């Protein structure tokens, strides 16, 4: 059958190829030229970034310090001082340079909120695509937005609000964090979950395009938090840390058992993990031991964030959600604020705490009210 099979294969595959004509070549060419121009912009941006690497590092430190200064002092008096209408099914959010950016999963847009003026704009950050954004973070002058539709992380120029390229990760991308220059991203994986790291590549195709590479696998897609050079990953009841070594290899520390561990946040005061058993634990990053645990009084329904003044947890379920404020030193709950709809994602910055309401398509600005 060998010769027959050879002939059959050749005939069949050529027939398959011959039956196909690209749908709209002219439109494809226009799209190609647009993307070519966009990628050229990346080159320019990267050249500028490279030339100012030291300055960027300085800015990063300065920005971190700035965020710390902007943290709210301990207080029980919390209030929603503004509610903004955003896109459909808002998910992750980032606060940077006086703006809040919200990833709208259902309509594939980014909402930009100007903190000072209160003006909002919904941006089609990936024209021609049908993205499903989930996470947005700011780093090195770019926004990084995850797109579940294409399983990519999409760097977006905040000035134009448009994507500059797309970086492949695994399916169902989740958290993205930055440790200065390296970018880390979590996604699903055959093993359960994986963490990807950006690195200059010299792959077989001769391409030198930025690329995220899987550097660690987990039993489930991990939640990530970064502090300094360390990335903390929480998955399947275990918390571990990852660090990029000078050699280019990733050091993975032994896991710390935290039963029911869900989301994780990190700062100089420790590593904060909320658990399924309504508690929040603090891990000492030096000893890698749980040093404190407190009852939240409510199952953590959403994410956790930390700033200089407090640890913030979105707790409860749709229709009964709360923002819980925890004192980082005593680990006592010092404030609660009921939030309408389906609060889930949280970020701090610009003198406020920001929470997206997935079911109400809203963004809450929450401030101290003494």
């Amino acid at each position, binding site marked *: *059958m*060998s010769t027959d*099979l*050879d002939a*059959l*294969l*050749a*005939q*069949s*595959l*050529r*027939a*398959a*190829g*011959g*039956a*196909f*004509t*690209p*749908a709209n*070549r002219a439109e*494809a*060419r226009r*799209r*190609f*030229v647009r*993307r*070519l121009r966009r*990628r*050229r912009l990346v*080159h320019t941006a*990267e*050249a500028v*970034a*490279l030339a100012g*690497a030291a300055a960027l590092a300085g800015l990063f430190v300065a920005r971190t310090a700035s965020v710390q200064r902007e943290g709210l002092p301990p207080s029980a008096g919390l209030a929603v001082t503004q509610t903004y209408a955003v896109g459909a099914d808002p998910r992750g959010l980032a606060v940077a340079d006086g703006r809040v950016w919200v990833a709208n999963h259902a309509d594939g847009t980014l909402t930009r909120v100007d903190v000072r003026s209160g003006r909002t704009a919904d941006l089609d950050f990936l024209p021609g695509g049908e993205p499903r954004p989930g996470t947005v973070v700011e780093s*090195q002058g*770019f926004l990084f937005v995850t797109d579940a539709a294409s*399983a990519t992380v999409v*760097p977006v120029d905040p000035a134009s609000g448009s994507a500059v390229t797309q*970086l*492949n990760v*695994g*399916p*169902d991308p989740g958290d993205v964090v930055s440790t200065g*220059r390296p*970018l880390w991203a979590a996604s*699903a*994986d*055959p093993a359960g979950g994986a963490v990807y790291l950006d690195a*200059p*590549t010299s792959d*077989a*195709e*001769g*391409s*030198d*395009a*930025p690329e*995220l590479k899987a550097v660690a696998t987990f039993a489930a897609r991990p939640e990530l938090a970064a502090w300094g050079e360390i990335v903390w990953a929480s998955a399947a009841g275990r918390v571990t840390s990852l660090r990029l070594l000078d050699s280019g290899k990733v050091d993975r520390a032994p896991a710390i058992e935290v039963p029911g561990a869900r989301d994780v946040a990190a700062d100089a005061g420790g590593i904060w993990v909320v658990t399924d058993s309504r508690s929040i634990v603090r891990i000492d990053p030096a000893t890698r031991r749980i040093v404190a645990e407190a009852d939240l009084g409510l199952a953590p329904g959403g994410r956790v964030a930390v700033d200089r003044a407090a640890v913030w947890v979105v707790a409860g379920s749709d229709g009964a959600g709360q923002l819980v404020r925890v004192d980082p030193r005593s680990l006592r709950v010092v404030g609660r604020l009921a939030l309408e709809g389906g609060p889930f994602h949280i970020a701090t910055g610009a003198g406020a705490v920001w929470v997206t309401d997935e079911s109400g398509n809203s963004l809450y600005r929450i401030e101290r009210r003494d």
Partner: protein
Amino acid sequence: VIVTRRPEPTADRDRGVTTLFDRYYDPMCRLAFVILGDAAVAEEIVMEALLRTFRGWTRIRNPEHADAYLRRAVVNLCRSRIRRKAIEARVGVLAPRSAPLWDAEARDTQRVVWEAVRGLPPRQRACVVLRYYEDLPEREIAEILECSVGTVKSQLAKARSRLERVLEETLSGGER
């Protein structure tokens, strides 16, 4: 994400890559389509391959051989896509699928053969398509897939063996 770049004349590079588009977009789309069986994904992959060519333009010593570079990018992106689809299937995330262009009523032998080819593992599938669709010699297939000629031969042998088995079962059974 910051990657070290070399300065390069963008005008020449843009012109070269758009020329590549005009010359190779259609045949490369067909190649990707034969490997994947999904028209929309095939076109997107070729677009990405062309854009990667833009990024790696300075590494292409001889622009006359850019088609080989492009073909390699298309095949490798197809293989990545196949692997990703396998991952998505395992984690229950199903990518939206385009309706096949092939006439559903044309249940003829060629269609059966093509479907059997698309059931092969990524590397075997790439070897078969490059050998029988692109009509490339084993040496060039080995270069594209970055493996030895011996590996290409063994992959083709495994693919043939598997296809013979599948086709015998399918075609002799009458019903698919």
